């Protein structure tokens, strides 16, 4: 799988990220690094412990990273969650978390495939 195909699988914007960050090598490096990013884990645990302020920051961070890497799909869902959590926990929060979770898994799956073919 190429980086471009990976972006298609995780529904990101390959053209955009290459224009912004200029180097395919660098983008690939950080895409792979996304697997080790702890903010998703932080989001899950802080939702469990009902620490919604922390959850807000975690969602915010995911959103920021996705923005940097042009992971459009995950960016959108994490962006909506961030805005929802900004005012604290609400009726829709759990649903939005699930949506982020689904998109996150899709993203991770695609990156893992990329990783399998590009062992570092």
């Amino acid at each position, binding site marked *: 799988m190429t980086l471009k195909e990976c972006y298609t699988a995780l529904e990101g914007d390959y053209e955009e990220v290459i224009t912004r960050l200029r180097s395919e090598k660098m983008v690939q490096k*950080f895409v792979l690094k996304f697997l080790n990013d702890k903010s998703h884990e932080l989001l899950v645990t802080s939702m469990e412990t009902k620490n919604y302020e922390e959850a807000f920051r975690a969602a915010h*961070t995911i959103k920021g990273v996705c923005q*940097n*890497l042009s992971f459009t799909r995950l960016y959108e869902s994490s962006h909506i969650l961030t805005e929802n959590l900004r005012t604290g926990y609400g009726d829709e929060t759990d649903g939005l978390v699930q949506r982020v979770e689904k998109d996150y898994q899709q993203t991770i799956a695609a990156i893992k495939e990329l990783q399998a073919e590009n062992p570092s």
Partner: protein
Amino acid sequence: MSFINGKKSPRQTILIADDSEMNRSILTDMLGDEYEIMEAENGVEAVSILQKYGNAISLLLLDIVMPEMDGFGVLNVMNKHRWIEDIPVIVISAETASTHVERAYELGVTEFISRPFDALILHRRVVNTILLYAKQKKLIDLVTDQIYEKEQQSGLMVDILSHIVEFRNGESGQHVLHIRTLTELLLKHLGHIDSKYQFPRSEISLICTASALHDIGKIAIPGEVLNKPGRLTDEEFEIMKKHTLIGAEMLKALPMHQEEPLVKKAYEICRWHHERYDGRGYPDGLKGEEIPVSAQVVALADVYDALTSERVYKKAFTHDVAIQMILEGKCGQFNPMLMECLREIESVLQEELQGDSDVRTSMRQMQNVAEELLHHEELSASERTLQLLEHERMKYRFYADMSEEIQFEYTVAPSMVTLSAYGARKLGLDEILMDPHNNEKVQEMMGTGTLRAISNELRGTTPEHPQVKYDHEVCINGEKRWMRTIGRAMWSADEPPRYMGAIGKTTDIHDERTRIDALVQMASHDSMTGLFNHNYAKERIRERLQNRPNGKFALAIFDLDHFKSANDNYGHMFGDKVLIHMAERLRRSIRGGDIAARVGGDEFLIFLEYKEEAETAIQRIFTSLEGTFEDFQISVSMGVVRTDMVGIDYDELFHAADQALYAVKRSGRGKYRFYDDSMYGMLSVISPIDGSEEKPADQTGERGML
């Protein structure tokens, strides 16, 4: 740190503050080739790095949403300490709400870049910002250099001018230099003699520079008069005298610079350096203090140098002769103070004049430059202010360190405590503590309530009376010690004033307090049993009765039956042990609010408040006092009285309980009884009314009181 020519100077350092490791490493990747990178994963870390490295950080890349302290918090701290003036900040944030952007710019950030950012643009902005700040710094240096140059040039112009005069006068090139040196020496010493003549360094420097121009008017004096060997005729002398007025007029006629202090001083000197203190000089015949000090001093210097130099019309006198002539008034009258001054520095004069090399001159010029720089504050104000601030901070830190006090500063927004270096060491805490109210270590140390209590006290003050004192315990290395915190609340100047935070110090008063506690303990307690002594108990009971006159209280007095036999059979040591044991039983059998005391000997007292029936409580205590100690059978006799029986006067209560106790003794011991009217007028156990014959046999008197 050098800011110029990126390539050759040491690499500049960028601090990246972002809670996401991903974001930090993307930025590091983009900038790491050209710059040193430091990373902080929250605002507190960023602040502490900034504090540690200061201006060595060339740029801060700052995220807004971060744990511990957010980006705005960091900016607030940077503003507070004025770091923002020297360290540029670029905010990179996914927050794009215009309020965020506005707030960031208001707090002094240079750029606000939103995510997702374009690598090239970000890189360009980083480079530009660093260059811009470097240029600004360079510009400040440049302006500083120009002032230096300007000063040097004006010094040069003065030198050229005065040398032209000297050349025409046929004087040695040293004259101007000598006058300057003499003027300086005299002026400086004059300040020591009389504070009236104490001038700031800048003023002295100015007069010295201006002194070079004293004879400038001689340019207009015909050469044949000027350089005539031998005595001048009266007519010629009148012409010669004019050089003072001519010099003054030349300066007055300058089309510009009339307001320059240098020009003003030079005017005084040119015009009046031939005036004499007794009014017999020229051109205006000024007298005494009418003559500006600058002119008086230059006049004396001029005379001395003229005497000791060779001129067309005379030979050089020696130093001693010259001084002698001046002091004798051969060259006109000078200010007596100035004469005294001359006498006092006479011995160093010669030496100074001989050593008047170029080096000294340039040193003096350097001083002038320094003075001049101080006059141009606006150009380097921030730099100098920063230096002063740094100086003050150094001083403060030094004193704070020396004083062995824990000094602190608290700000509400961001919620932060800054400790003095000593304080941080002593407490084992960081110098900067964020959100102290929720800091676990602080809570552990102070206990949950203390910090809140101090904070409430401070918030309860007013701008007029902002100070509070609070004693509390602090746990340091597992040991609890008493501390005294004296704080001053900081109120804003707004109306109504807002609580901004506080400053203060915490001192260890443990030893002092322990001593006082020990004294209080000694004064209020019975040393053998550790119970209250009678006097102290009486005071406490009276207090209690007065505060709640309608409360239901009971007072019981008891003593040990057959205590004398215990003493007799087992010895007094054993007797003491029994008393200590009884005190312990007593302590265990009463409740928190009750008062127990040793009245004396083997008599004890209990004061308690009851709810329904006093008897229930008395019964319980009475039972718990009985038992055995080693082989000794403990039995007590107890007399009790309630406040509803005899009122709340302590002496009445005590007396009634005493009589009840007597009644018990009379009827066979080992019991308790409440006072009743039948006992009225009975004898007392504790204070027998008439003689000891009525006192029960087992009374031990006062033994064992101490």
